[in-house]
């Protein structure tokens, strides 16, 4: 076996395969919860894995690599400062994660990796293997990964990629990590036949044609980068925001967090971090009381600059959206990426009166 191999894992062997992997690491996978809800969680037995789960709201890459709440270290102030790391980095396989979420993990690995490495994130991601699951059809109407080059299947960036071929999975090994995680159950894998590869090709073609949401981000990138979108448009967009920050919380790419100390008594404290959001006024308010982003509109603008301006694309290697559609379903209003991109493009037509007139700036 080597990186790049295309193999077959029979569905009858799946429980055995992941049970044998479980001896090396914990298995995190989609689980059915109340009334059809799905969340990724640690499974006790591979039988719990909801292979038909569709999509979930709570991005698994973030949940297990950059947790919502994470204890970082503890310190005591009685009798000299003593600091003790609380970092946790369990060995884990995230099984069934979607292509968009794998792309997002790669984005976060880069963000947290350089120029200064975030040791908590680095340790977690080093110990995690992603077994991604190709979307034979977009699981939700909100999905638009195809516009972001982040799915519904991956050509690179995965550790192991699984494609459902009915009674078996196509099993592609994409990295050294994926390779070593394949060794324990390796005897259950057999080489893929040309028919399997052909069948997979069919699935790709079909999946590509089934998307219901489209987003022409490229044009928005141009307008945003050149600062051509009038502030009036941002303010109009911002006027409907509920300031819930679901857009950034549930975005698998967003990386902002805040830190806080939890008193544990006897001079002991725990420093923990939790997700924070650029959509909060308090996120940028300075100690003087001055806020560089005082309005809802200015904060929405900020979010989209980070998602789609060239300045960040150059640094991060890609724009900050993988098309998972979570901002579409999580936003209490319509400030999701496809809607805002659409609004920006429409606004540019409204504001550019004739092709010779420049776009109106800063109304």
């Amino acid at each position: 076996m080597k990186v790049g191999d295309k193999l077959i894992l029979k569905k009858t062997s799946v429980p055995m395969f992941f049970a044998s992997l479980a001896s090396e690491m914990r298995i995190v996978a989609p689980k059915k919860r109340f009334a059809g809800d799905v969340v990724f969680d640690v499974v006790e037995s591979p039988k719990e894995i909801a292979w038909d789960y569709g999509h979930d709201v709570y991005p698994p890459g973030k949940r297990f690599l950059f947790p919502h709440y994470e204890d970082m270290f503890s310190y005591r102030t009685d009798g000299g400062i003593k600091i003790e790391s609380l970092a946790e980095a369990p060995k884990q396989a995230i099984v069934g994660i979607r292509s968009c979420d794998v792309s997002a993990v790669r984005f976060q690995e880069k963000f947290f990796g350089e120029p200064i490495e975030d040791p908590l994130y680095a340790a977690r991601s080093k110990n995690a293997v992603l077994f991604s699951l190709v979307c034979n059809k977009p699981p939700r109407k909100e999905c638009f990964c195809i516009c972001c080059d982040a799915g519904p299947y991956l050509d690179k960036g995965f550790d192991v990629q699984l494609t459902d071929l009915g009674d078996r999975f196509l099993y592609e090994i994409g990295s050294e990590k994926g390779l070593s995680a394949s060794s324990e159950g390796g005897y259950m894998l057999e080489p893929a036949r040309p028919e399997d590869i052909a069948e997979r090709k069919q699935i790709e073609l079909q999946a590509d044609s089934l998307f219901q949401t489209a987003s022409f981000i490229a044009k928005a990138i141009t307008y945003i980068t050149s600062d051509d979108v009038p502030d009036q448009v941002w303010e109009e967009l911002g006027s409907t925001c509920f300031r819930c920050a679901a857009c950034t919380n549930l975005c698998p790419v967003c990386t902002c967090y805040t830190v806080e100390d939890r008193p544990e008594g006897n001079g002991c404290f725990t420093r923990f971090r939790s997700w924070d959001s650029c959509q909060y006024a308090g996120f940028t308010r300075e100690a003087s009381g001055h806020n560089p982003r005082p309005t809802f509109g200015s904060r929405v603008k900020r979010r989209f600059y980070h998602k789609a301006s060239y300045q960040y694309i150059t640094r991060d290697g890609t724009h900050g959206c993988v098309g998972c559609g979570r901002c579409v379903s999580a936003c209490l209003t319509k400030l999701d990426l496809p809607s805002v991109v659409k609004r920006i493009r429409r606004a540019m037509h409204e504001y550019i009166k004739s092709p010779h007139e420049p776009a109106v700036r800063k109304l």
Partner: protein
Amino acid sequence: MIDRPTICGFCSCGCALYVEPKYGGIGALCPSTTHPVSTGRLCIKGWNAIPSLIRADRLRTPLVRKSGSLEPTSWEEAFSTTAEALRRAISESGPKAVGVIGSAKITNEECYSLVKFARGVLGTPNIDGPCRFYDASMVRGLLETTGIPASQIDLNSLQQAGSMLIVGANVMEQLAHVGSRIQDAVESGCKVVAADPRVSRLAPQATLFLHPHPGTDIVWIRALLRTILDRKLYAEGAPEMPGFEELRTSLEDVVMDLLPKTAGVEPSAVIEAASLLAKNPPVIVMFGLGVLQQAGSTKIVRALADVAILLGGSVMPLRGQNNAQGASDMGLAHDYLPGYGSIFDAAARQKWESVWRCEIGADPGLNAVEMIKGCANGEIKALMVFGENVALSAPSTEYTIAALEKVGFLAVSDLYLTETARLANVVFPACSFLEKDGTFTNIERRVQRVRKVLDPLGNSKSDLEIIAGLSTLDLTGSSAKRKVELSNDPDQVMAEVAANVPHYEKVSYQALDQAWGDPWSTNGAKPRLAPVSDRAAHEDTEYPMRLIASRINFHMQTGTMAARSPTLAREYPEAVVELNEADAERLKLRPGTVVKVSSRFGNLTRPVALSDAVPEGCVHVPHFFGGDSANMLAPFDCDAESGVPVYKGLHCVIQKASD
């Protein structure tokens, strides 16, 4: 591990969410996608306020006041001290010397048990809920009109509305899931007529936004009703509705031409509102605390219900607290019993006498506001408060605190050492909704299962356990063997509720373990139109400005929770009073100038900020944390019908604090 969902307890929308216990606190949190309200979405409170339930300063052990200060103690001592004080009060002055105030944040099971405890175990008629400080007028006003003391529709039907009338509600900031559905409706063509003295975040959604003078809602709503009648804009069949003629007669004195003077609204705007609503069915009428805490609130509720009934539409009162509806349903009120049977109705009393095996008199006792007064004048000797920070939610903070200091015995059950708990003789450490099982009933009447996610912190207990625990002691000094049984098992309590409160007949924990809860049925309600008379206008030249009080979206109740969420507290770093620029100029006030806002009943001091959203002649006081709120200025004058104090539209005056 994320296991079973629970219900968010921070507003009446009642979103379902998953919480992962970790680090002795929480490790993860996400909304349910399949739940009919949350639909994969939470508001700023749902996302941020959960950790504020379990902060380090949570009460972990009972406290008893010993030589002046509150000292940690055992449950046994806390209970026996309470029992002794209650026995003394009752043997010296009778059960009516004891008052019990509950909360709309605790579960249905706890509300029900508390009512049973007060009426059955203690034998006092003085039992009431925080609805008295917020929205009790809606229960009375709607029972007399729509016949349903709750919303007539569920949240998802908002999207189908043709038009909406939204009065006195900062709904976009307070009830995100209502606001979100209003936006959706508007996008599909719904017309919104909004009314608020101040420009709120509803403005981008409104087709027509009226800005009546504070405290004049009854005036322009009567004009609206009159317009609907005169122009025959009502729905087919409306003239056959019971009460139609009485309503028409009661509106004969409406003078449209006087509206600009009496309410600050143009007659043409009222006519436009009437026709927008009539031409775009179905109509939904919503109203919030702006109406419910105004002078004559019950009357305004009736008038708004009349508008809905005439136009063939529905009413959705915007109650804010997570279990406001359930607390009312459970009879947490001084004047009616669980299921809304009046205390003056002998059949209702008999029914509950036989269920509880106790005696219930035809005596409405004291309501929550009167109990506070009773503490001051000695009528109340012992007060028990479960989960409500009355020191801040009652009017005239200074007076209330003095009253609570004066009462012979005060027992408080709460999560934190609130401003009320600090004054207590005994404090019970209650656990939060994360740490107990039960049900909440949301704004749509949906009865929902609250599930224990964490073990109770320290030695805290659920209010259900506290109430049941107390009930086993001798609290009245009577030697007769007590017959009233109080269970500490929420499932069993709900079974008793389901067997006896018709609205809850279909509710069971078993059913709620299979599927999301449903709204209770409104079948059999018989709507009728109620007459609406005018109110006597009241001017106060010494206090020429009008007060507008509001809450912003990350704030709930008295701020006990919000202040403990750094993210929420950070959103609102400073308390200000907002003034129109013209007023600021006239009064020679600059932004940042510290001013004193005074009413006849109290005052508060804050810096000034300018805002176009505030009309001339008004002062806008957003609620702040720790009791810095407009309640400080409110009188003990109440709406005569519902007993709700007047917090909105108060007369006040503003001056530089340094003068």
